């Protein structure tokens, strides 16, 4: 579904990813794990054209989408949820979701998508008219995911969705992600919280210093090399 070929990217002329090859198939969850500063977020940002791309290609459904502007990517069916519970805090929950559909002109479609999203996240329906800043951390993260889902994406990019959340809430978020995937949405999830991410993922890539060093399924966590990547030369 999405293929990345020999991608080199970074910010302000500084290369962070040094030649990434990556693939995700339809209805797959792929986790990207690795230590801080390994370039995990940069990989997602490169797909969503928020980083500078120096060379390489990103292909989505046989179409070259490298460096396409945001609204094209959304129309193609890719949505991005940035790190850190990013919501419009002074807008209500419903207004946040409306903004998620900003580029959608069809009002009927919006209503249908809204009902869908409320179905998946009943707590958001309950707090529809509250300002987003009054939501709990977990609710804000759900709102951020819902705001992307309402665009009805085929591929969802999640940057550290469990960051800063309590263990119980974290579990709930991971459950929701698995549920969303069961409905056919492909998901790329970047996580510090490696264990839980690998458990819900079909495949995992391990990133270190801008390169993919390991690739595998759930058994990857038992790999000795993981330890050395995270803790340095064991």
């Amino acid at each position, binding site marked *: 579904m999405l293929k990345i070929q020999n991608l080199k990217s970074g910010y302000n002329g500084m290369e962070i990813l040094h030649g990434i090859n990556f693939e995700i198939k339809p209805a797959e969850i792929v986790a990207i794990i690795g230590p801080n500063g390994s370039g995990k977020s940069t990989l997602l940002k490169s797909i969503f054209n928020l980083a500078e791309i120096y060379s390489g290609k990103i292909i989505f459904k046989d179409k070259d989408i490298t460096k396409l502007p*945001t609204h094209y990517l*959304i129309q193609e069916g890719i949505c991005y949820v940035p790190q850190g519970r*990013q*919501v*419009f*805090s002074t*807008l209500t929950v419903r*207004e946040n979701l409306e903004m998620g559909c900003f580029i959608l002109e069809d009002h009927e479609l919006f209503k249908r998508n809204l009902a869908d999203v409320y179905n998946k996240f009943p707590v958001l329906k309950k707090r529809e008219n509250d300002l987003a800043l009054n939501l709990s951390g977990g609710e804000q993260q759900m709102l951020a995911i819902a705001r992307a889902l309402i665009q009805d994406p085929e591929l969802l990019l999640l940057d550290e969705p469990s960051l800063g959340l309590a263990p119980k809430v974290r579990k709930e978020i991971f459950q929701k992600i698995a549920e969303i995937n069961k409905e056919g949405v492909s998901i790329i999830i970047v996580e510090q919280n490696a264990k839980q991410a690998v458990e819900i993922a079909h495949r995992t890539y391990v990133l270190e210093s801008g390169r993919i060093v390991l690739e595998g399924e759930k058994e990857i966590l038992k790999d000795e090399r993981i330890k050395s990547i995270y803790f340095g030369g064991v």
Partner: protein
Amino acid sequence: MFNQLFINGLIAGAIYALVASGFSLIYSVCKFVHFAHGAVIAFSAYFLYFLFSKLGLNFGFSVILSIIFASLLGFLINLFVYKQLRKRKASNVILLIASVALLIFFESLILLLFGADVKTIGYIKISKGIEIFKAIITPLQIVIIAVSIALLILLYLFMKRTKIGKAMRAVADNKDVAEIVGISSEKIYTWSFIIGSAIAGIAGILVGLEQNLEPTMGTNLMIKGFTSAIIGGIDSVPGAILGAFLLGFAENFGIWFLPSGYKDAIAFIILFIFLLFRPQGILGIKK
């Protein structure tokens, strides 16, 4: 006496609110201080003077043209100056300096085009005021208060109900997330200039009808509008409106205790007090 000062405060507040709401709308969306807003206000008053008093066009038609002109002027300032600076990754301080330069430029342009002498639009003959609750108010002043309040309600509804209004609040809240969901912040900046400057145009017209026209009128109003916005919270349009009425009342009740020449000093003292002790303003959120 109290009633008269109250009404005077209300009139001043209504005008300041129009200045401050357009200014703070642009600030909250674009996140920089657009002092040239004052120039847009002055230009719209002079444009009305030119169309109505000089060319002798129909009054209503002149008013509408002046508002459109003000809106267009704001749009062009953003397009040819601020947008170009943003493209070159200029900081907000650079934009602020550019806005001061624009204010001086446009005031000089007014001086060049219309001269330094005071002008009057003279649409409304000086009329005797009406007495309400032992206070005197002219029909024009009633119109000023009514137009101002109606416009502020309209602005509120626009920001709450329309798609563009909501997108403006979204960009003001978090520009990066707005971009991620496909809202182009440059487009929304443009909208904030069009709408903010149209409000400035209306402010300029009302001031031009009530007072005389001078090339520096924009700067004077801008100082009051800026103070209002600081008092109420510069990031919040409702805050700026609240601040405007508070400033209007403070100035007018102040002359109960002080000679009327100190009116402007009151505004500055309040500005300093707020900048020192509550820089985020009354409704602003401390960041």
